[in-house]
């Protein structure tokens, strides 16, 4: 009998949605499990890290790792899986570009801990208990992994062979990626296993996207009635489709929501936010500085919007240390 290829699935700092994108394979999940030997998948099976360490280096055909690198422990586990695997596949936006987790890079770790454990209005913590690397409880010494100073994408700590984009990836993309791995049909190393072009190239609303568009201001979702068939940009609503890779099956567009960029930049673009700045600025019709300023004023949080999924992988990576908004 042919030996089934060994596979591992792991999560770092994520929300669990990427795990869900495997479970969403539904019926084909059973077929998948019949074709592979899952040697490590903490969310689904009861394995120990020791089981993983016992494997020979390179023994796993592929490890799918989701989530960003937020703690030293994530980095350590990623390195262990890298050693044990022939291929490492970055699974989802957080692993590829830091994802929403990467927005933590607008803050310092001290600010994050203070907000979470002291300042947030929904927190009652009169004793002021905050997580520490070492604490003693009932005579036991407990350890927590330290937070990294900045969130990093997976390729910030290990070599990554392939990327499946999305927050989370569609089950179709997961199925396709798993099949490519199992059947040994993988493309060139470093490829993103999805559409190469921008979302606009495949968007159902692309025919209504104006060739030349000028706006005096941008509208907000909360106070605008949105036509469900017309390009969002034509309705003066910011849509990141031009700066975003396609392949998501228009999930948001189909739900009448503009693209927020979760598939990351298309091939040939490295900084999604910088690309967004360029194309959004070019839509502003006026050349008068005051009118331009007015239009820009209608985008309350441009950095958070343009880098929602890619801050940790951006050129600047996050807010300069020890600084507040300038």
């Amino acid at each position, binding site marked *: 009998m042919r030996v089934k290829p060994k596979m591992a699935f792991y999560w770092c700092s994520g929300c669990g949605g990427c795990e869900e994108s495997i479970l969403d394979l539904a019926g084909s999940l059973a077929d998948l499990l019949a074709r592979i030997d899952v040697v490590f998948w903490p969310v689904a099976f009861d394995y120990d890290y020791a089981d993983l360490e016992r494997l020979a280096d390179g023994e796993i055909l592929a490890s799918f790792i989701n989530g960003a690198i937020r703690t030293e422990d994530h980095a350590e586990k990623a390195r262990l899986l890298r050693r044990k695997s022939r291929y490492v596949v970055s699974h989802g936006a957080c692993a590829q570009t830091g994802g929403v987790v990467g927005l933590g*890079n*607008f803050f310092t770790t001290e600010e994050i801990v203070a907000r979470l454990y002291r300042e947030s209005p929904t927190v009652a913590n009169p004793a002021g208990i905050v997580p520490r690397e070492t604490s003693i409880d009932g005579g036991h010494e407990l350890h927590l992994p330290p937070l990294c*100073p*900045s969130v990093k994408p997976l390729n910030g700590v290990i070599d990554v062979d392939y990327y499946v984009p999305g927050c989370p990836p569609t089950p179709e993309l997961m199925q396709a990626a798993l099949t490519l791995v199992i059947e040994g049909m993988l493309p060139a190393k470093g490829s993103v296993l999805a559409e190469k072009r921008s979302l606009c190239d495949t968007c159902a609303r692309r025919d209504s996207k104006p060739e030349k568009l000028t706006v005096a201001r941008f509208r907000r979702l909360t106070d605008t009635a949105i036509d469900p068939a017309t390009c969002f940009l034509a309705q003066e609503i910011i849509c990141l489709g031009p700066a975003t890779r396609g392949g998501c099956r228009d999930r948001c567009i189909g739900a009448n929501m503009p693209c927020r960029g979760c598939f990351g930049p298309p091939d040939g673009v*490295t*900084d999604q*936010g*910088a*690309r967004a*700045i*360029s194309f*959004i*600025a*070019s839509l*502003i019709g006026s*050349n008068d*500085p005051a009118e*331009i*300023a007015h239009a*820009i004023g209608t*985008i309350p*949080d*441009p*950095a*958070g919007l*343009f880098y929602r999924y890619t801050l940790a992988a*951006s*050129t*600047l*990576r*996050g*807010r*300069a*240390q*020890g*600084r*507040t*908004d*300038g």
Partner: protein
Amino acid sequence: MREKEKAKKTPKAVDGFEPRIICFLCNWCSYSAADAAGRAQKAYPANVSVIKVMCSGRVDPQFIMKAFHDGADGVMVLGCHPGDCHYKKGNYQTQKRVLLLKKVLGQFGIEQERMELDWVSATEGDRFVETVTRMVERVRQLGPLERRA
């Protein structure tokens, strides 16, 4: 590491800080102005490193972010005066982009004063010298730009 590099490349002043300024100049106006200043042997601060581009409109926001990330304490883009761009509208696009970029840079903790967009024509050698000198002094006051690890 980057700190070390910087210390190597910039001359030491009394207070220990010499700002490093990256200055993008368009081929048709502002670069000629810098050239004119040079030919007239006008002195301007050695803190400025010039990068020539065909048009200010060629300066992608990512170039500016990369300059800041790689060690610049300030970035300048100098183009032709409004209406004078060799490619007609390049500098108008630059203006919009830089204004939006400045807001984003502020959110990254980079003061807007570290980013300067101005217009200098081919004959304005003096204006070029004044503009870069003013920028160097302004950034010197702000101090070195800290970066994210």
